[in-house]
């Protein structure tokens, strides 16, 4: 379970948000909305423990995430605006090195087939399009077997089929008692309908 208490964040001198308090248990999801610059990405980075909040704390279970980073990160999959792909390594190699646990290439290739990247396995990542990079990150989400997903604009640059895929993956993740925190400017379909919404700004 991930919970926050009274989070506040500043950008420079400007207050982005304050008093953000919520709690999400297994199978629960939350969508964070707000205009550009309202602090969605900042909030997600704070939730992932990449940034420090000005005030308040984020807890995994009953512990502050700062005190249980390893335990928290075993369960967390975060995907930000940037993909963390190294252009001179192939798609498969990038996927392999983004996953901390032991993996077999055969299993990873299978995961890449699931997200429609079967023809890009041995292509250096710099030749992948934005949408294909997105799909590679989806493959990582699938292979990571994490219970808490934090996704920053996962639908950006994806085609219609890709968007459908994200939605069904998220729905499946929730059915498997996963936690999902997502930002998106596009409306999510009814497959994910009825999830809680947090409006910033």
């Amino acid at each position, binding site marked *: 379970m991930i919970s926050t208490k009274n989070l506040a964040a500043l950008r420079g001198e400007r207050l982005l948000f304050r008093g953000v308090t919520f709690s999400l248990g297994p199978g629960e999801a939350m969508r964070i909305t707000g205009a550009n610059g309202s602090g969605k990405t900042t909030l997600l980075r704070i939730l*992932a*423990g*990449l*940034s*420090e909040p000005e005030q308040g704390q984020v807890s995994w279970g009953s512990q502050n995430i700062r005190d249980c*980073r*390893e*335990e928290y*990160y*075993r369960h*967390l999959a*975060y995907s*930000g*605006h*940037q*993909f*963390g*792909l*190294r*252009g*001179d*390594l192939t798609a498969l*190699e990038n996927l*392999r*090195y*983004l*996953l*901390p*646990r*032991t993996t077999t290439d055969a299993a990873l290739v299978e995961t890449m087939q699931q997200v429609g990247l079967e023809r890009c396995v041995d292509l250096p990542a710099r030749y992948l399009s934005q949408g294909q990079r997105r799909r590679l990150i989806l493959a990582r989400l699938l292979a990571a077997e994490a219970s808490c997903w934090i996704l920053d604009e996962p639908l950006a640059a994806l085609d219609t089929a890709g968007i459908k895929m994200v939605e069904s993956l998220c729905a499946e993740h929730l059915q498997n008692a996963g936690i999902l925190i997502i930002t998106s400017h596009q409306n999510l379909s009814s497959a994910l309908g009825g999830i809680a919404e947090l409006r910033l700004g």
Partner: protein
Amino acid sequence: MMLCALRKQFAREMLGAFRQPGDALAPVVFYLIVGTLFPLALGADPQLLVKIGPGAIWIAALLAVLLSLHKLFRADLDNGYLDQLLLLPCPLFLLIGARLLAHWLQTGLPILLVTPLLAESFGLDYNLLPVLLASLAIGTPVLLVLGAINEALTLASRGGALLALLVLPLYVPTLVFGSGAVYAVQFGESPAAHLSLLGALAVVSLLFSPWAVATALRISID
């Protein structure tokens, strides 16, 4: 999972270097160029060359390591991998240790391998070679990890000049003891004192730097 994460971190850095050999070998090529320019510029005075040789070689090595520092984290900061590195379920200082080891194998080791060539171009006596190599073998890791701390700290400010200003004073003891060891042998003394001081520097900096780099990275990424 932890060992696997470390192994993968090391493998990623090494494989990346093999894919971009030109990029990976730039520091050692720079080292060779600086080291060969000295004898060319100073003219044919064998005694002078022998005298300045050890110091010049050490300065060239120091600058080559300094030149290689920008490769440590900057590309991975830009492509977002550093975020993912911080989110791996493994103590960050160990991951940093694996990364620094890979980086030393790409810069420090090649520097050691071509050093006999430079020693030859300065006309250094062959009995100086063991102590020159020993001092560089102990010294280049120190230069690398001290530079890594500063690189991690200045990552957010993107200040190349700032890095050099901060790191050069820290490099002075390593440079003094490193080249001092070679000069000691040249003057017919034992290099033990210099080498043990250099070794002490190495032990302290290698033990603490991964932790310092990890902390600095968390601050820079924030």
